[in-house]
């Protein structure tokens, strides 16, 4: 099989080609074409094929990570969207949960009021009402009214519509029928329904998810169509798959229907890439640490599985969305983060970033604000002549000038200031990691930190030190980990149903029947994608809570028939999960099954492990030496430090810190007291001691 992964970022589009039979892997990097990223991506594929001297027609799969949906939301640049909802509830999308985003603010805006996904004039109501618990129809759907609204939408130039009815997660028939009527009357319209995108309770969040799916729908659909057309024009008849926020790929046609699945496409690919790289060495309890110029993305992998965000914690652009997403903590901390003194006199780093233009002062593009990169250069941790593999040289004098300026403002020594910038940045990142580990009952000392992105390997060891993490894994190509991650994914689909069944009164046949119907849905989807039954893996889970609570915990359910004994195992697993997550358990409380879930994985071919490139002893990998500053026992000390060419170093030869490894896409810092060793899969492992 021949696979190509294409990850579109804000500045560069990264491409990775792999041939699974020959284990050949080749990388390409091209500028992103912001007006239509598919143009740059297709061009990148063409040059890659030309360089490999292969006919594009032989490529089997193209896997794509895209920010097109995310940008449509963040830039509020989507379709003219209409809503059809129940009479009496026109403004659910406007009132939301009646909470202000900020406690202490008069001048704030509320995202869904200031930037409505559908304006009030386009929110139309119709008769029809379903009630819990079993979907009793209090009022039949007014089909004629729906038909008239559809015609009005057409006349008004509405481009996308979302049908949002209360309790559609119990019975979607009114939504399905209304959607069908709109499609009959106005087939050009992009139509979605709330139960189709997020069949679970909480109307504001579900309606918002549906409205957002409509808002971004036409744009993503057109983008995917363009991409496919571009592939055809380049003589590629490869299947196009797109990375979803949940860490699996989906077919182009599914993404065209549910673009909302791709909101965290790029960062999810990063977590996958980090997990894949570290997994080559057998590690499967991981903290992925993807640090670029402006932000750090942190993900958690346990036993090779990604932590998923709870439905109540998933927001984009301030709007809540109810779709499965990998739990990724993003903070404004990266190489371009600006260090500053706020008006109260406190020393801060980030979240503002100098970006790539003007960028850090060290870039020599006229940047005047001190950044993390400037601090790293002043401390000797970046090699001014080997930044990005020598493609760019850094301006030490400019970096020193901005750090001196900040030092004067703070009344600190310049080296203390530069080291302080790193300490504050690293501590912000360590706090973000704590929020995903310690606060959830996980001990970070049981994990390895996978450091990648342009700046991850610069900071990995010191952040690990703050948390007591024993090992840092630096993948072979930290700069293209996301693109490689695309080639490690499977076709992943989720199905969900709200149950509201309570311990002691569980309807076992309904529960089994509902699982069976979720399974049938998934199998149908895989059959449509041409995935053989033997390549499908299904797993069950439930969202459970103590009756009366408002937040659920995800608990695995066993396969097969569900009976009293298997349920008892589920209850015990919930108690244990609650204890682990919150440090407390309510043994006498009843448990409620809120949602059941089924996750399907359709196996896809994957990228093979890279072979180590180097065969040199450390002495032969050495480039030169210079001064590098580290804090030892509270005091700053300058060490004579050797700079190595990372790709030359042979496997299994530990190199003691202080040391700096340079390569085309990143720099790895090994502090005093740490050792670096290249191991299986061409990963470099940093360890404290011995």
């Amino acid at each position: 099989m021949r696979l190509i992964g294409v990850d579109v970022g804000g500045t560069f589009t990264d491409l990775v080609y792999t041939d699974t039979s020959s284990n050949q892997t080749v990388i390409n990097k091209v500028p992103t074409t912001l007006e239509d990223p598919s143009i740059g991506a297709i061009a990148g594929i063409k040059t890659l094929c030309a360089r490999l001297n292969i006919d594009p027609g032989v490529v089997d799969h193209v896997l794509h990570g895209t920010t097109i949906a995310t940008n449509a939301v963040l830039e509020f640049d989507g379709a003219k969207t209409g809503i059809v909802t129940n009479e009496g509830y026109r403004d659910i999308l406007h009132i939301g949960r009646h909470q202000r985003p900020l406690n202490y603010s008069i001048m704030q805006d509320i995202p869904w009021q200031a930037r409505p996904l559908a304006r009030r004039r386009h929110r139309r109501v119709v008769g029809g009402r379903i009630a819990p618990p079993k979907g009793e129809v209090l009022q039949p759907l007014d089909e004629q009214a729906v038909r008239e609204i559809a015609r009005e939408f057409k006349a008004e130039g509405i481009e996308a519509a979302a049908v949002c009815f209360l309790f559609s997660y119990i019975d979607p028939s009114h939504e399905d029928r209304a959607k069908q009527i709109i499609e009959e009357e106005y087939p050009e319209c992009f139509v979605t329904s709330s139960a189709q995108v997020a069949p679970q309770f909480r109307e504001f969040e579900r309606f918002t998810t549906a409205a957002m799916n409509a808002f971004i729908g036409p744009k993503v659909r057109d983008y995917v169509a363009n991409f496919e057309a571009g592939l055809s024009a380049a003589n590629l008849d490869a299947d196009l798959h797109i990375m979803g926020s949940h860490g699996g790929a989906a077919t182009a046609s599914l993404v065209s229907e549910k673009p909302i699945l791709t909101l965290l496409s790029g960062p999810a690919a990063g977590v996958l890439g980090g997990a894949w790289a570290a997994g080559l060495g057998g590690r499967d309890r991981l903290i992925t640490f993807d640090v670029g110029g402006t932000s750090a993305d942190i993900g958690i992998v346990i036993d090779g599985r990604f932590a998923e965000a709870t439905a109540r914690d998933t927001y984009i652009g301030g709007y809540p969305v109810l779709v499965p997403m990998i739990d990724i903590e993003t903070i404004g901390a990266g190489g371009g983060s600006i260090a500053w003194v706020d008006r109260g006199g406190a020393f801060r780093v980030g979240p503002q970033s100098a970006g790539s233009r003007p960028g850090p002062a060290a870039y020599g593009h006229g940047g005047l604000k001190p950044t993390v990169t400037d601090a790293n250069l002043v401390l000797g941790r970046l090699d001014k002549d080997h930044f990005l593999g020598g493609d760019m040289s850094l301006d030490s004098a400019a970096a020193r000038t901005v750090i001196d300026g900040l030092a004067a403002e703070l009344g600190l020594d310049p080296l203390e200031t530069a080291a302080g910038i790193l300490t504050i940045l690293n501590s912000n990142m360590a706090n973000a990691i704590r929020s995903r580990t310690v606060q959830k009952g996980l001990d970070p000392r049981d994990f390895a930190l996978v450091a990648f992105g342009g700046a991850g390997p610069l900071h990995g060891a010191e952040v690990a030190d703050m948390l007591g993490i024993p090992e840092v894994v630096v993948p072979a190509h930290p700069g293209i980990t996301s693109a490689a991650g695309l080639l490690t994914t499977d076709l992943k689909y989720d199905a969900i149903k709200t149950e509201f069944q309570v311990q002691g009164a569980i309807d076992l046949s309904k529960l089994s029947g509902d699982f069976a119907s979720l399974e049938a849905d998934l199998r149908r989807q895989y059959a449509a994608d041409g995935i053989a039954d033997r390549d499908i893996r299904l797993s069950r889970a439930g969202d459970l809570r103590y009756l009366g609570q408002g937040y659920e915990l995800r608990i695995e359910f066993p396969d097969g028939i569900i009976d009293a004994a298997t349920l008892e195992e589920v209850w015990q697993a919930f108690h244990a999960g609650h204890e682990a997550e919150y440090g407390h358990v309510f043994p006498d409380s009843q448990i409620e099954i809120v949602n059941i879930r089924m996750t399907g994985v359709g196996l896809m071919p994957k990228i093979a492990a890279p072979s180590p490139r180097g065969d040199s002893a450390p002495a032969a990998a050495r480039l030169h030496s210079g001064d590098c500053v580290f804090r030892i026992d509270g005091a700053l000390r300058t060490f004579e430090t050797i700079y190595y060419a990372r790709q030359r170093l042979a496997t299994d030869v530990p190199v003691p810190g202080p040391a700096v490894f340079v390569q085309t896409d990143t720099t790895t810092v090994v502090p005093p007291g740490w050792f670096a060793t290249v191991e299986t899969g061409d990963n470099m492992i940093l360890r404290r001691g011995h």
Partner: protein
Amino acid sequence: MTAEPALKIRDGGARMDPVTASVIQGAMENIAVEMGHKLMRMSYSSIIRESEDFGAALTDPAGRQLCETPQSTPLQSGPIPGYIEGILQIFAERGDVLAPGDVIIHNSAYHGASHGPDVAFCVPVFVAGNLVGFSVTTAHHLDIGALSPGSCGIVDAMDAYAEGLQMKALKIYDAGRPNGPLWQMLRDNIRASDLVVGDMEAQIAAARIGADRFIDLIERYGLATVEAAYEDLMDYSERIMRDAIAALPDGRYNARTFIDGFEDSEDPARRDLPIEVTAIVAGDTITVDFAGTAPQVADRPINMPLKGTTDCAVWLTIRSILLDTAVHGHIPQNSGLTRPIKIVAPPDSLVNPTFPAPTIARFCSGNQAADTLMKALGQAVPRQISAGVGNLHVVSFSGIRATSHWVHMEIHEGCYGGRFGKDGLDAVDTLYANTRNNPIEDIESHLPLRVNRYELRDDVCPPGKWRGGIGSIREFEFTENGGVSVEGEGHVYPPWGFDGGADGHTSALIFVPNQGNSVPLPSKLPNKMARAGDKIVMVGPCGGGYGDPFERDSIRVVEDVRDGYVSIARARSDFGVVITASLELDEAETEKLRREQRSH
């Protein structure tokens, strides 16, 4: 400004290097976040888990607040220093001593809690045998054993004893051992006690986590370093507040508003009660004087204790206006922020009542105090305030199934007035309240209630150059027999217009019986029986307008008409904008109409 900060650090007398200070301060905020996160997720009753009516904070041994959870509602974390002061005072009076392993339960209205349902659990934090601080969670409980079900709408409580259990700094864990009789008394005297006790256990668990993390932090950096870091942090917050106050013109800024009180009462001392505020700005300090405010209502519970309600309302308002997060970014919330603010409240008044005057329904009065202070400050900083804010209704639904109670509380939102350059926020919690509503799909799935309607009011757009926010209508129907009680405000006095903007609209409550005619209800409703099929309609207020409506951008008026906020007729009469039947702007007619208006 740019050259000053370095000087400030030296002038501010920083105790430690700014790097370590920044690291420790970040770690403390992280602790408070974790406490709030866990409490919210573990708790049972919707008032905590959905409405987020809870708080979590760490304090020093004297009760000074070091950090608070950002998830909390301001009226919960804000009073925590007062709780600790109250506990310390009671302990001193009784000669009691704190020990490791203790957990203190406390809800005394006149010792920081300000009303009984907000129960605090305080874990004293010891390191090497010395008290180094407190880890505290507070939360609004569904029921606290008052005279009628639920913990809101107890509007006929005639003194503090009628409001439910008073727990004055009691050890619910004594050196690690649970106080069995006290737990039993809670279970025996509180309705829906499974839920309430579950929430209390969740509060204790979250407070203990905070204590553990605080100990870890001290063990890592040393007590002296942590103390220096939080002293610097408080100085920092104080400095920012002083700078903000110093930027105001010195002067006295006075305003007065009224609350309904008991609009249906024959006793004039219970209704139409003034709240008066004079804000005196002098240099970098501000004094907020409530002289002119009505005397306390000695036998009805709308009085606001100075500590825990009045003070929080003042702090919240000043902070939201002068250090608006949307403008100034995140500023650490701690006791340093309140140092430059002095509050003067006449004794035995609505804003400083004396025990045993009842206080359980002081929520809306306090929000009105905040609104009145904003009205006063509007004279100093007209571009940083909103016109009059719509107040809230707190509603308790209850009933009995078999032998046990169900209780459900809802806060029905208000909205904001117009602001300089921006319309008011529609249908949202206001000022010191910032809770969340309950999903209709959750309510109907778990309670014998149905929500028949939830949307904005029609054609009530308060005129202004920037219009007031629009309130919502929420209609509940009982599907079984039960009861309802309400504490609300704003039925009589509409939110004030500002600088030529019109006043907003009052709120209302309507009872629609299954059979018979609808009846309006007062804003204070003691428990009222309801039968299956009976409905309660809550009509939210609309905020005041800001600026002359005839100066409103006519395009925005057209947009409001298209969105159904304003009728064509009102666009003409209230805004001087002429709109055609096809919803287009008639520019010539509009200009003419507006010119005529100006010449009058």
